[in-house]
């Protein structure tokens, strides 16, 4: 049986690993979505890492949640995993985590059903990944205890790297959008 402090450390560790893996998954997704001509083995690698690492991350995330609750040092109910802002302990910050979990569930489910649902539904839901990543970063950063600066720095680095890739995504799709809107105002019906 793990002692209380071991569970606490395990929860912290799996949390920070989850955020790192999640950031890698998001970055791979951003690269795949942003490149105009994804081709060659690098595209396959980016897509493969995106798909499989996202599932790998779930293991760490599950461990993070379970250890945080059964640790019992702070009071978090099982319902608080899914329903935001009902936790006794830090309702706001745990709530961000819960929002992230909710979004993650729909993103994963729609991705499994991708070939059975309209593409635009999958795509629309997949946009929620950005929101999920942001709340996860906020959740991780705000929980980073002051005596553990490394945890905070890792989360901060994830935030910066993810932010840079997201800006790159906006920049490259600008040309696309501009040309598309130029053409779509022409007579087409």
């Amino acid at each position: 049986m793990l002692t209380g402090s071991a569970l606490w450390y395990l929860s912290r560790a799996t949390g920070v690993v989850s955020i790192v893996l999640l950031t890698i998954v998001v970055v791979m997704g951003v690269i795949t979505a942003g490149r105009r001509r994804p081709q060659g083995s690098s595209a396959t690698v980016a897509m493969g890492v995106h798909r499989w690492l996202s599932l790998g991350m779930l293991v760490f995330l599950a461990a993070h949640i379970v250890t945080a609750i059964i640790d019992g040092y702070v009071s978090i109910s099982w319902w608080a995993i899914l329903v935001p802002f009902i936790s006794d302990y830090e309702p706001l910050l745990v709530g961000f985590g819960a929002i992230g979990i909710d979004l993650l569930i729909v993103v994963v489910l729609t991705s499994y059903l991708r070939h059975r649902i309209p593409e635009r539904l999958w795509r629309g839901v997949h946009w929620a990944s950005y929101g999920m990543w942001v709340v996860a970063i906020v959740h991780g950063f705000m929980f980073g205890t002051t005596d553990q600066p490394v945890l905070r720095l890792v989360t901060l680095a994830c935030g910066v790297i993810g932010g840079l890739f997201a800006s790159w995504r906006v920049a490259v799709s600008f040309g696309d959008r501009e040309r598309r809107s130029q053409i779509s105002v022409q007579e087409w019906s």
Partner: protein
Amino acid sequence: MTDIVELLQTAGLTGRGGAAFSSAIKVKAARENKARLIVNACDGEVGAAKDAWVVEHHLPELLEGVELVTGGRRNAKTLFAAHRDSKTARRFADAGLRVLETPERYVSSEETSLISLAHGGQARPMAKRAPFVFGGRDSQGKRIRPTVVLNAETLLRVSQINRYGADWFRSFGTTAEPGPRLVAVGGHVERRGVYEAEAGLRLTSVLAMAGGLAPDIEYVGVGGMGGVLLTAEEVRSATWDGPGMKRFGGSMGPGLITVWNPRDCPVEVATRMIAFGAGESAGQCGPCMFGLPALSRDWIAFSENSNRETHWHLVRRLGQFSGGRGACGHPEGVVRFAQSALRVLGAELAKHADNSCTKAGGRSYAKLA
């Protein structure tokens, strides 16, 4: 009534809109899926005229073909597609038919564009994951009901095969490409018009119906903007059939031949064709909306200043499209034309670049005028 699908199979009718796909297979699928029929009479290709001709002279037979394909199904709601405000659209309307008015532009006349338009969408091509005769979804996930698009001439041939039989049909053309087929001959000829031809004729015999190839003719386009350019010498030795046209990278396509005016600078004409093709992109796929304008720029750069570098840029650009880029055939068509123009116009391009071209639209012509 003998089964029309079997009859079409025996006759070997293929689509006359350009793709030359087996009409029997298409009609069979359309019947099995109770697909809605859209008659394509848009004449979408540059220089096309035969759809309008069929509607003007053979509307009753065309409607008979429609009946045969839809199996006389009540509530078939067949649509008749023609460019907005065209004579053909008016003829359809006057006959009390349901007209699908299409914007007068190149890619809007393509079959999936018509299907999209018929579903209340824009007349822009859709990606075909499976033929829309089975129904499906557009790229946005909107449901598309089973729909089949047949060219106006194809339906005319369906009714003729039903009336006169497969043997009659096979008495025209070659074994591989049987049947009579219309050709629109335009450009610098005595009698522009639509003529009954068949595969296996000499290309000069087809042109002879329009008054023949004048001795000063230098270039002849086959298939319009998505087709190829031939020299007059090549035309004199070519046969009008699939293999004969494939020698030059082309096909019989939607059945049209354009004789280029020898007084016009062919480089300028080709430049305008390529620029037109680039401007007709529906803005949906990268290779089309960015690649074609880039191709147009590279073509102009090479035609104005031909050196190793501009030539290399153009050839590399053309190579980027290999393997059929984009979801529809539009980029491929423009590139096919540009490639054939580059092959055929070598000497003209050199003259054009060093300003010694004196033809109308040529570079020094512009200075003199």
